[in-house]
């Protein structure tokens, strides 16, 4: 279903020194990225059911694409809320540290604020030019599940999740919804439909409310430039534009073809690569899992 992968044809793993992987078990979807000698080689993505089963599924999917087996992969870092349930992981690192590592790798050392807007939760993270975390803020419960509520909203309005973001641009005027509680916002959006408010206005209103909710979170930690957005909601142009307008900032846009949902898995793979280099050169890295402020 929502599973795809891409092989980097320019690399030959048979001659490679290091093959490592990052696995990101999120609340809604699970992703895996394989690096060959530090270069992205393949990735895959599946929907999360239970973390353990999904970690095996996403790993098998990425391996199947490359002809590699699990034994070929020297080091695997697990991240995401289900990272504790990945049976083949050598080490666990929080998605907060992986998000900034992946973002700085892709966008460069100017990145200072990363907004990771996922299916279940949103995180704002400050980082150094080397991608180390200096501060972060997690969404409070009242704003959890914004990504998933977008899916529910798309389902209720019989639209595709990929199209509702652009539908929100079809109107300039729209009513206000509660922008604190996702439950209220959804219920009020349904009320609007009864009152014969045009569909594109309802969709725009819902996007605006959710964008404002996320922007409040960013505002609380403070916005330092450069700013990037990753996670599934980064693919929703309606949300992204809303956030940029509220925060009066432009995010750095992706220069690469990376799917914003894969950045955390990429960060995990980069950590795996670093750790494996350490193991090979005999430098002992501490085996402490769960380091947020790594470095």
């Amino acid at each position, binding site marked *: 279903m929502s599973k795809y992968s891409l092989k980097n044809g320019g690399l030959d793993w048979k001659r490679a020194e290091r093959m490592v992987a990052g696995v990101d*078990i999120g*609340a*809604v979807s699970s992703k895996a990225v394989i690096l060959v000698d530090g270069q992205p080689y393949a990735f895959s993505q599946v*929907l999360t*059911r*239970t*973390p*353990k089963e999904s970690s095996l599924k996403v790993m098998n999917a990425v391996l199947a694409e490359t002809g590699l087996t699990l034994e070929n992969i020297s080091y695997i870092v697990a991240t*995401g*809320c*289900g990272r*504790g*349930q990945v049976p083949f992981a050598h080490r666990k690192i929080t998605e907060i540290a992986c998000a900034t590592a992946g973002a700085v790798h892709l966008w460069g050392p100017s990145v200072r604020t990363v907004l990771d807007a996922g299916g*279940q*939760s949103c995180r704002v993270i400050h980082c150094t030019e080397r991608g180390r975390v200096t501060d972060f803020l997690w969404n409070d*419960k*009242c*704003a*959890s*599940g914004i990504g*998933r509520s977008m*899916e*529910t909203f798309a*389902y*209720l*309005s*019989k*639209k595709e999740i990929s199209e509702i973001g652009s539908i929100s641009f079809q109107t300039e005027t729209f009513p206000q919804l509660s922008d604190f*509680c*996702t*439950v*209220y916002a*959804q*219920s009020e959006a*349904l009320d609007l*439909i*009864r009152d*014969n408010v045009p*569909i594109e206005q*309802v969709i725009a209103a819902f996007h605006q409310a959710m964008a404002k909710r996320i922007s409040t979170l960013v505002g609380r930690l403070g916005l330092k430039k450069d700013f990037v957005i990753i996670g599934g909601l980064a693919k929703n142009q309606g949300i992204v534009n809303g956030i940029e307008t509220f925060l009066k900032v432009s995010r750095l846009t992706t220069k690469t073809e990376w799917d914003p949902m894969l950045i955390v898995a990429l960060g995990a793979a980069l950590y795996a690569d670093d750790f494996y280099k350490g193991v090979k050169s005999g430098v002992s890295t501490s085996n402490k899992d769960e380091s947020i402020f790594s470095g």
Partner: protein
Amino acid sequence: MAGLDVGHVNTKSIIIRSEEILGFATVPSGLKAVSSAQEALKKALQASGVLSSELKMIGVTGFFRNMIQKQLNIKIAVPEEVAEAKGAVFLNRNSRTLISLGGNIQKALRYDQDGNLIDIIQNDKCADGLGIFYTSMAKAFGIDEHELSELALKSTKHLSVAIHCPASAESEAIDLICQGIDIPDVADAILRFIVERISAMCTTIPLEPEIVVAGGLAKSRALIKHLSLLLKHDLNVLSTPEYVGAIGAVISCGSEK
């Protein structure tokens, strides 16, 4: 005669001749309630083998009733509370209280032997969308609503998710899954959360027996089991529980004559 119940989430249609249910159909309401209503009606007519020209009268109820009444030029539109009480008495003559579990709105109704409303209570806004929440949790686990309910019956642990808010409950349920808790135990926690919200609502009106339950969530055996325990009352699930409003809309047509 035909009844239409155009709700937040689903549009239900039923075809009744005198007191006999001939056929019914459900389609998602979507954002175009009018075309959903037309589609539901068409499907219900097909299911019952009745031609639309044979329809004597149509009654409409539900959240979108006024929009539908105006645009489809339907004579009778009744509030869903009125329709559901009538429908509940039609399906169970001895019932006096209906707990109606919809996609977005939950309510409890008390009525007399003719289905005339006496008392009513609706969920507070913080508990909106319990039905939608239930469906979305089933989807998150990659199963359907029926499976979620059946799995919950297999739970051996007694876990809890938030007691007040569906958004928090969802977040906590996902946390449990991420910790590697088995789906049956999480499903059970989700259902008990929904049940606690419903029973909290039911404490404010007297529950006069027989108590019947309707709406899509009524089809969950696990939910009914927990709700019955918590309310300390026997509960009967109406047959065709999601059509009680549509049936009531038809009956309201009859009483207009």
